[in-house]
């Protein structure tokens, strides 16, 4: 086993946080992108036989995937934001409606886009997610703020009212262990059910 003191781990955590760079999501900055990119996605969805609601859902997911790629600093984002979002939307459509795969034309750039495998949850994961959203909502919110909104421990102190960074860090790990424990318990019971 590896041996680290708590001080080592805290210093490592600071380094990890410094490495995370991009600006957090601000939905109000997206108005212009929305007005330019949504009509293009809507035309594609209409062509594939979808509705306005389908277009909206696919577009929202495409924006989220684009944002995740940008946060991870994906090197393959060479084209314009709008063209890339349209490309992601096409892939998401194919993911949802596999039978239409041959009817979607992809440019060379679009062909290189790879959507995260688990972007849409499977049946068992949906059940697990519903349970966690009910029983672990506060922890899910805290963990999302830290891991996916890139909030620092200092920001957790300010926003969540912890007395100091140490207390915020302790609570963050308690939450992670709580969610992990529910996941473990439920995953085991699903595995047992399958046997």
């Amino acid at each position, binding site marked *: *086993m*590896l*041996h*680290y003191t*708590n001080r080592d*781990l805290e210093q*490592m*955590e600071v*380094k*990890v946080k410094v*490495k995370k760079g991009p600006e957090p*999501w601000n*939905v*109000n900055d*997206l*108005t212009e992108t*929305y*007005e330019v990119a*949504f*009509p293009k996605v*809507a*035309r594609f969805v*209409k062509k594939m036989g979808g*509705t*306005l609601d389908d*277009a*909206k859902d696919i577009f*929202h*997911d495409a*924006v*989220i995937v684009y*944002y995740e790629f940008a946060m991870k600093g994906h090197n393959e984002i060479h084209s314009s934001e709008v063209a890339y979002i349209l490309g992601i939307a096409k892939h998401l459509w194919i993911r949802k409606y596999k039978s239409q795969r041959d009817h979607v034309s992809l440019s060379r750039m679009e062909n290189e886009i790879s959507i995260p495998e*688990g972007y849409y*949850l499977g049946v068992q*994961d949906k059940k*697990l*997610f519903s349970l*966690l*959203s009910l029983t672990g909502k506060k922890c*899910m*919110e805290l*963990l*999302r703020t830290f*891991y*996916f*909104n890139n909030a620092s421990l200092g920001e957790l102190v300010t926003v969540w009212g912890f007395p100091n960074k140490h207390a915020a860090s302790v609570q963050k*790990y308690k939450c*992670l*262990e709580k*969610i*992990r*424990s529910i*996941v*473990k318990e439920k*995953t085991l019971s699903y595995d047992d059910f399958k046997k």
Partner: protein
Amino acid sequence: MTLRNNTKLIERYIEGSLNPSDKVLFEANLIVSPSLFEQYRSQKKAFEMVQFYHRKKLREELETLHQSIFNDSEKIGFKLKIHKIFKII
């Protein structure tokens, strides 16, 4: 190792921030320690669930933006453009 230290190490492994030698050692420990492997598997799934929760919240924000654009009288041209695509008008 305490449970908490394992949690922190798994966190760093998932984030990809362990140095190469610690990563190799951690992966070897995953093979020889079923309990560590179980913690890792559950923690990875927990991260996926938190990420899905994050996406759900972002979708809600985008829905609010969608409604505000579609209900903005100054953006009636945009709304008509979209409705025309779907032949709603």
